[in-house]
């Protein structure tokens, strides 16, 4: 049974690919050729690998926003809002520091974005703890409030008058953009994502803080009786999750758009939630999951061009994989019931 944690999701993945094959066949495409395009577009060449890893970068960070609070038994779905406020804070900081050097500007942008996203989700955690406000709903509401604030600011006082079609802030300056890793076209955001996943894994696995969090997640009353400050830990964990998603917003601004605009609201937050669940809230498992779904994002263009399929094809495939991965949780649970299998 040692392989079950890998075997069950893998089976779910293969099943969803089979289901997707039937679906595209019904739509008149050649399923095997579509699989081949997905492979080529996502992992077939170095060029497609680079696209995949670039798409995976924000997904890793937004997944952490759900995965960390989940260790406490909280379901936070505010990644989208944290990306938005993080991106906004990053753009503002970038504009303030536009006359300084790139290192200072980028550091300032990253810190501001993490602070903004962290405080947003930290507030969600605090409201949960001190006022018993359901964290799922409040974080959903904060998504909408954040998007409204972003729209208000980029259309109003922060707007660069030259951005006609898509109102945006002023550009943070080409020399202050987040660069690529070596000779690749993969920007530093990918490294941020991997580093964040690894550090947070170590933090939760190897420190007393992580132990305290797991204890609160396991039994709040026992944790409280042993003297742990539940509220403080809830706030800190939510702060870290929000900071990760806020950093995703900074990466989008500093490495991709150069400005803050409504492109920040691109669904990374919602996809991140599902990646966190698919990775069973394990920070290290988030990395391959994010790469998988980044690959599907990267391949959807090729799939569309090669087979004349609608651009929503990638979305259908994502939906099918998520549904079956979530359903596979039930198999884990059944195993646990029947055989005392520790999932």
């Amino acid at each position, binding site marked *: 049974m040692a392989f079950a944690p890998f075997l069950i999701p893998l089976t779910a993945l293969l099943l969803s690919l089979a289901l997707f094959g039937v679906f595209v066949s019904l739509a008149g495409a050649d399923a095997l050729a579509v699989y081949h395009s997905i492979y080529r577009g996502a992992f077939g060449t170095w060029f497609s690998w680079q696209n995949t890893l670039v798409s995976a970068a924000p997904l890793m960070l937004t997944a952490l926003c759900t995965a960390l609070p989940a260790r406490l038994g909280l379901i936070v779905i505010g990644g989208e809002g944290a990306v938005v406020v993080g991106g906004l804070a990053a753009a503002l900081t970038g504009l303030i520091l536009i006359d300084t050097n790139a290192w200072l500007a980028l550091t300032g942008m990253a810190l501001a974005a993490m602070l903004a996203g962290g405080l947003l989700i930290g507030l969600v955690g605090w409201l949960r703890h001190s006022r018993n406000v359901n964290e799922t709903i409040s974080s959903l509401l904060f998504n909408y409030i954040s998007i409204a604030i972003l729209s208000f600011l980029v259309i109003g006082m922060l707007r660069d008058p030259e951005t006609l079609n898509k109102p945006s802030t002023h550009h943070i300056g080409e020399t202050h953009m987040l660069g690529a890793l070596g000779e690749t076209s993969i920007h530093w955001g990918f490294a941020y994502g991997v580093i964040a996943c690894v550090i947070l894994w170590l933090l939760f696995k190897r420190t007393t803080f992580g132990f305290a969090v797991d204890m609160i997640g396991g039994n709040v009353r026992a944790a409280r009786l042993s003297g742990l400050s539940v509220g403080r830990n809830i706030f800190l964990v939510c702060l870290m999750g929000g900071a990760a998603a806020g950093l995703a917003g900074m990466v989008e601004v500093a490495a991709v758009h150069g400005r803050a605009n409504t492109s920040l609201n691109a669904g990374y937050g919602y996809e991140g939630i599902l990646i966190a669940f698919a990775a069973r809230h394990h920070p290290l498992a988030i990395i391959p999951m994010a790469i998988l779904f980044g690959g599907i994002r990267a391949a959807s263009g090729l799939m569309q061009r090669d087979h004349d399929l609608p651009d929503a094809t990638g979305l259908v495939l994502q*939906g099918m994989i998520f549904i079956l991965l979530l359903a596979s949780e*039930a198999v884990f649970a059944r195993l646990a019931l029947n055989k005392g299998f520790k999932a």
Partner: protein
Amino acid sequence: MSGEESQWLTVLIAVLGGAIRVGTPFLFVSLGECLTEKSGRINLGLEGNLIMGAMAGYGVAWITGSAWLGVLAAGATGVVLGFVHALLCQQPRVNDIAVGIALMILGTGLAFFIGKPLIQPTAPHLPALHLGAWSDNPALRAALEINALFIVGVLLAPAMAWFFRSSRWGLAIRTVGESDDAARAMGLNVNLVRMLATMAGGFLAGVGGAFLSLYYPGGWSEGLSSGQGLMAVALVIFARWDPMRCLYASLLFGGAGALGPSLQAVGVTSGYYLFNAAPYVLTLILMIAASSTKVRSGMPGSLAAR
């Protein structure tokens, strides 16, 4: 009448019309979500139902030439998505929030995929009553063009309130929503009741989608929904799980949504995005207040227990 006064009147009339037009899909998704949540489960995937409903409703209306058959088809797709949601959620360790988001992605993807050929053709619209015929103000006449589905929704709200309060099935749903154990002790099949409630809620959300494509804004395109399905969850909390308050809340959200464009029409261009956020801020304040004053919030017990 002075110029400024008539401007504000224009805004007022546009908000009134918007409350009805923009509020109707809100009304259907919130009643659907209310029904599902009363049984103790959250369906965050109603956005998928809404978009699938809009697409299926438009397609079937175009093929058959009957807008009402389209509404029925939209409801049917909602039932199917609701069935999938309920089937997955009743498995052990499967989280209903995650399943909802996954179904939202899948439903949206399927609707865009299948609906690609529907962007061009024109399907018949749902009929409307011209309640403003007495007035010679064109803006008021437009605002009082009441769609038949809105009237259905308005009648449905008190009907659902009665259903919860006074019918045997309503009691069954409420019991399941309050406590699994109590429901089992009464001999109810908890999973079955939740499944039926989720499917019926899905039907209503699908119908809300048909309103989008078959009346207002009308037509099928990928930008048709602006997140009304996701907001259903917030609306139901705002309405404190009461169908009648769902009606008022939907009108309020609809009016708030119409405030921006109508202010823009009279020259107020910035600032209205903040008005768009007003309903969410209000919901949040309501949640904070309800939790601190120990007032019974109306939340079903099995939702509160987690």
